[in-house]
């Protein structure tokens, strides 16, 4: 039986991650809690808005209302990485070779490991930002499409157009596809080799959580009463194929998804705080956490796929041990 070790904090949890197998919980007020031989807390941003897990560097990158970017290490060390003035930093991403990217207003910034910062002006607001898995390349989600920049060179950006407001972005792990979340209840995708479009619509709500399965074969998403899982094995992605619908519930919406690190299994968080896991092959479900006080906002598996750390909008967080 799965067991839950709870951590109750007053506030909205934005990110729940493992750093060196230590559970971390980042809250909207900028406090970062961790369970490392007891409950410890450090303060990063004065108002947290977005986070990115930098798995390669084993750190959590945070940005927020104070216009600053911080990194939090597994031992709780907080370091200021960048500052963008008085504007809110509303998106952040972690890339290869210690680089990070962040967006404030109509500017995207890339900060390299040596501290050098490069800035990219856009005609409209930077809504979301993502690093490509290989090479120094970022995608900026914006109104009417996405822009690809190559920060290490002075090359011209690549523009990907699709009408509507794009609010977030993610590259497939093989770098072949870019997928954006939209203001409408839909995802949009581009096959980068030829610019082919992929429309993924039919959601009853906005999609706020995306997670690629092991080897990038599937993309799981929130925004419906089930986790919607799109097949990306084919060379044209999910076009012409129906997605899997996992963990369907009649009375709740999926708010967060996280794929298992090595198996085709997804952890699904709902707006009532329930967490369950579902296997792609046979849609078999396991209840991991009963409903709590508020919507699940953050989920992450540890490297072995044995524990899940979760956070909610009401602060009732915890660590699920699958084996109990």
């Amino acid at each position: 039986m799965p067991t839950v070790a709870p951590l109750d904090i007053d506030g909205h949890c934005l990110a729940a991650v493992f750093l060196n197998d230590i559970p971390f919980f980042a809250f909207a007020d900028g406090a970062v809690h961790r369970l490392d031989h007891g409950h410890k807390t450090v303060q990063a941003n004065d108002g947290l808005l977005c986070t990115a897990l930098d798995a390669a560097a084993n750190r959590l990158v945070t940005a927020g209302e104070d216009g600053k970017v911080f990194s939090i290490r597994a031992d709780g060390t907080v370091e200021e990485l960048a500052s963008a003035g008085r504007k809110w930093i509303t998106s952040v991403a972690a890339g290869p070779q210690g680089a990070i990217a962040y967006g404030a207003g109509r500017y995207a910034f890339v900060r390299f490991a040596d501290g050098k910062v490069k800035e990219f002006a856009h005609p409209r607001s930077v809504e979301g930002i993502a690093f490509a898995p290989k090479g120094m390349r970022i995608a900026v989600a914006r109104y009417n499409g996405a822009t690809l920049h190559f920060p290490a060179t002075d090359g011209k950006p690549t523009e990907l157009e699709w009408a509507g407001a794009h609010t977030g972005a993610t590259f497939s792990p093989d770098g072949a596809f870019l997928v954006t979340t939209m203001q409408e209840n839909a995802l949009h995708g581009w096959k980068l080799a030829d610019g082919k479009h992929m429309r993924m619509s039919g959601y009853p709500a906005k999609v706020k959580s995306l997670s690629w399965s092991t080897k990038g074969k599937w993309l799981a998403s929130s925004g419906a009463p089930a986790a919607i899982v799109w097949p990306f094995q084919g060379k044209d992605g999910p076009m012409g194929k129906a997605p899997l619908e996992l963990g369907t519930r009649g009375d709740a919406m999926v708010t967060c998804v996280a794929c298992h690190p090595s198996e085709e299994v997804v952890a699904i968080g709902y707006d009532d705080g329930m967490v369950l896991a579902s296997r792609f092959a046979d849609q078999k479900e396991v209840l991991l956490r009963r409903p709590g006080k508020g919507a699940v906002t953050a989920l992450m598996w540890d490297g072995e796929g044995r524990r899940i750390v979760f956070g909610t909008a009401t602060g009732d967080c915890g660590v699920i041990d699958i084996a109990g």
Partner: protein
Amino acid sequence: MSEAQTQIPVTVLTGYLGSGKTTLLNRILSENHGRRYAVIVNEFGEIGIDNDLIVESDEEIYEMNNGCVCCTVRGDLIRVVEGLTRRPGRFDAIVVETTGLADPVPVAQTFFMDDDVRSKTRLDAVVALVDAKHLPLRLKDSKEAEDQIAFADVVVLNKTDLVTPEELAAVEATVRAINPTAKIHRTERSGVDLANVLDRGAFDLKRAVENDPHFLDAEEHGHHDHDHHGHDHAHPSAIHDVTVQSVSLRAGEMDSKKFFPWIEKVTQLEGPNILRLKGIIAFKDDPDRYVLQGVHMIIEGDHQRAWKDGEKHESRLVFIGRDLDAERLRKSFEACQAA
């Protein structure tokens, strides 16, 4: 607990450069009124107050990808409101300041069209500041100044000390011609009583009607209304440079099976021309008054309260917009009456 109690009220402040918005904002931020406001501005610039809850945001007008040309939202507000509401308890209400030239419609529509914003906040009122001295000039050179007035629930007629009583009366008549339903407050140096601007509940249909027994009765009850017009007629104003018109309709009890398809069709077809609509409808065999309001193609309605004994079961509807065919609206409205 009702939803309305947990939703944070949002006041939208519009007005041309020089109309006194910054002065009013500074008062909202600094006066001791017992409420804390988060303020979303386009530029920190002139606000001389250092406050964590002043958020600078680039106005981003996003067309929705649903084929509806007037369905626009302020994308930046969606993001900022989401961020602010993750830490409730820091403030009691939100004020959104728009730039001088801003179209107030996308701001208002954001609070109806985005599910996340809608679940956490509610539009309280759209307040337009008007510079009494320069309004005639503004109306000549821009459509936006007129739109801001036409769209407002509250008009603060500011800088009244810079004009003669006759000029003031003329300016007020112009405002009233553009918007027959707004509350007008005359003031100097943005000195309006903040209670007249904040926490108005103007978009809360039930409250708007309760607080203002003369809701939709602009003509009858004066409101300093200086031009004369019948109830059933459109009145493209005789005042120069005013292109917005209002159409006030009045009829008896309606047949709900006719009225709802009609209002839906009107808002679908005429939506781009309708800035605001407000109404109280009497349905046949319905003991309750039905109130409704709309912004372009978005329309909302609800039962308000039971008709009182002796109260006339009458349906009233006001459209504020441009290029409205008053005669056709009147005829088709009357055709919805119950047999």
